[in-house]
């Protein structure tokens, strides 16, 4: 059975404001899942708190809606407990880079096979437009009484420094291109991060559709030879140019895959390497007892603690 994008819709009312960039991202997610033909039973979408995190109710899957900022650790727990599942994290810049910033960086070190979709609109929408961690200093959106006194974090550089092995940037209203990025992110083995620029028509009157569309361009359109994949040490010469593109955020903003390292193992691989059998008998699915009883007496296992009298 080939699934259609509509198969990933749910009956829940999508409660975003008219014109919200989230609609484009949701459409791209639905289409990416359909093209990959992912079984909704095996799909786990995890979201924290914020407008974008609500996507867990709008994508048909086996989903988890958690507390603010904690979607990455919950998703990590799900994936490590059952590595066969396809686990996708959705969240805003406040959720993933503000309150959840520590978990965002820790995930890179682990390179767990998760896909992180950052709905990046630089504001806290649900609480009425406070400055998000990607809002540049000096910008005064209409909800702010004074210009922003804190500068923006660069999500791409942060992801790179943390160890993510797939880093891309998309744009919410370019559904087709975004769909392809999400597919590539899901297909990547390891921690994939996609920064999705997304106008918030209600609260961010500075970084608008027009503002973005004057600046964005696709790396592979500008340079048909753009190839950010690291397949071995010989590709390390590409790094300075990759970092240069990650730093570019002003008059011009690059989109597309900025970095993909194909050489690193995932945490799941490292578990399997240390403990052969981990994938065959994963924590979520393996039996834990024999006929409802503990399988063994501690005296038979913890022999280092025994002493003869």
């Amino acid at each position: 059975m080939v699934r259609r994008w509509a198969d990933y819709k749910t009956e829940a009312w999508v409660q975003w404001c008219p014109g919200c960039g989230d609609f484009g991202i949701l459409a791209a997610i639905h289409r990416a899942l359909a093209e990959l033909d992912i079984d909704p039973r095996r799909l786990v979408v995890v979201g924290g708190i914020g407008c974008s995190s609500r996507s867990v109710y709008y994508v048909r899957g086996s989903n988890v809606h958690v507390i603010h900022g904690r979607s990455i650790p919950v998703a990590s727990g799900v994936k490590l407990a059952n590595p066969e599942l396809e686990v996708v994290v959705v969240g805003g810049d406040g959720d993933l880079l503000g309150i959840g910033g520590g978990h965002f960086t820790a995930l890179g070190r682990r390179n767990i096979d998760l896909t992180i979709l950052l709905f990046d609109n630089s504001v806290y929408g649900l609480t009425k437009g406070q400055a998000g961690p990607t809002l540049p200093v000096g910008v005064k959106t209409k909800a702010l009484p004074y210009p922003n006194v804190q500068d923006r974090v660069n999500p791409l550089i942060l992801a790179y420094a943390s160890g993510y092995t797939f880093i891309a940037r998309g744009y919410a209203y370019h559904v087709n291109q975004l769909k392809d990025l999400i597919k590539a992110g899901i297909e990547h083995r390891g921690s994939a991060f996609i920064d999705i620029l997304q106008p918030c028509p209600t609260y961010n009157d500075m970084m608008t559709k027009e503002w973005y569309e004057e600046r964005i361009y696709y790396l592979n359109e500008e340079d048909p030879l753009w190839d950010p994949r690291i397949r071995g040490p010989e590709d390390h010469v590409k790094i300075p140019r990759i970092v240069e593109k990650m730093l570019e955020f002003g008059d011009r903003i690059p989109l597309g895959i900025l970095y993909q390292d194909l050489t690193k193992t995932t945490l799941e691989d490292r578990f399997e390497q240390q403990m052969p059998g981990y994938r065959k008998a994963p924590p979520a699915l393996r039996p834990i007892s024999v006929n409802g009883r503990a399988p063994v007496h501690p005296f038979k296992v913890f022999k280092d603690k025994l002493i003869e009298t």
Partner: protein
Amino acid sequence: MVDLSFIIGGPQGGGVESAGQIALKAFVVKGYNVLGTREYHSNIMGAHSYYHVRVRDGPARALKTPVDLVVAIDAESVLTHISDVGKGGYLVYDLDSVDVDATKIASMEPSLRSRLRRFFADMNMKPTVGSAVKVLEERGVRTVGLPLKDMLKKVSDTLGTPIASIAKTVNVIGLTAGLYTQGVSLQHIVKAVEAQFGRRPKILAPNITAARVAFEFMEQNIGNIPELPDGPHRGRVRMIASGNEVVAMAKVVGGLTFETFYPITPASDEAFYIEENKYVELGELSEKLELDKIPIAVLQTEDEIAAINMAIGAAAAGARAATSTSGPGFSLMNEAISMAVEMEIPVVITLWMRAGPSTGIATRTGQQDLLHAIFSGHGDTPKIVIASGDHVEAFYDAIKAFNWAEEFQTPVVHLLDKYIASTITVLDEWDLDPHKVSISRGLRIENPPEDYRRYEVTDNGISPFAPLGSAPMLFSSLEHDEHGFASEDPVDREAMVEKRLRKFETIARSIPEEEKIALHGDPSARVTIVSFGSTKQAILSAMEELEREGVRVKFLQLRILSPFPSKAVMDAVGDPELLISVEANAIGQLALLLRAYTGIEVKHFIQKLNARPLYDVEVVYGVKRILGEGARRVVVSGGA
């Protein structure tokens, strides 16, 4: 009857812990029961630490002072424990340290230095080790000065290696001299040293030589001491383990498949021991899975917030998941615990209490997190809290905690403390029989229908649990409808609050009454002690003494603190003449619960607030003062 107590003190990093463990092993090999705990500073090297041991032919339940022997490896230990050794007891110390002045010991707590200065000044003495030895001798303590430098030289000469390479054996020299005073033979000491270092031959040889050198010195200088007779527990295989380790063992054999932790004292050693054993053969399970070794996913996280959230994710996916922490980490976990209640997640949090508030004294014990454990999490967040009184209870409780978490889809807090964590005891095979507790996972369905309702409203409040990835579903931390979709509808809201409440009532009904409380002693006694957690064995030991003195006491030990077993408590307390709460916290947290849930007012308290473990002699003292003078609150202060 053999009932020995001793203290081995020295600088942190100076082998005090190994010496303590060797001592425990020597007595276990000899056929005795032992209990030993380590008291230490939050410091890697140099601060004073000590091992406190009790040896008995009967159950070694609790520690006590005064002790029969203090082995002081350095000057600070002599001065720190000047009040801990009793008349007729021994002090073993370093002869070269007699001139050391307390006021010059940089690692000593400044307050202790001042107390010592005043103590000796009152007797017109300088606060030196020499003065301490004199004072102790006047009190009837037998002192043995060891020429440690010469003895080390002898060890080095015997082995033909430089002194620097064997200097660490001072602990074994001191210990052997100490054990000699108690009639332990060289043969038993050597056996214990072998048990301690047997797998490290390079360390083993110098330590055995050190033991021989010390033993010979004692034979020549102290003369013959009658050998300690063999104890009653000989001819079998026994286990020596700490509370941290026993809980780790219970988790591993009890079905743990996923454990997270962030390093924190005194919880980390549990996670460490799980990590050490995360890939071992597990008997019949290995056969069933056709895997020689069974993997357990263990992960050190970036903080305690990640630790609990990751465990929650794993549990939602179907893993038997746990995390362990102490007070500060538990504070960080609060929001996620609230989520686990709302999302109905089976997760176990092993909470090793230590002395707060704040970072407090990170390496010392206390019982200050009882209310925090019960009322953790915002919103109405009932959960199960079970408190273990000793190693054996901790073993079974750790398995039960998993069962209850999964049967009732709820967070379970397993409440323990630093004292149990770092206390080593001896256990027999029958003490840790995992078949005494069956392993149950509750209403779990692996193949749910397409329209699976994660939060199906049921009479008993329990909805069938299907792991993530088995059907389209929603686990939601927002208030939700039966399917898990976020809902602010007032009818949905009330239905879910009522469902969770019914579930909590189901929990209260389902846990057998005999597992909620334990009533020790004569039920008709008119004096009743109430307590929870690691005070148990000190109280039981004190009851033996009080009984001998004609004071009949019963002891109500609360095992389940949430849901609070009101009826069982009221039945057990009855109408006592005197009700005493024994707690290691300042505000009488258990008494507050008693009053809130049963209306019973506790008017008398024995409290330990100095972050050291409770001694049996302190309970005896407290009960007598309350009986004799009607004291309302007796604060006991043993321990250095």
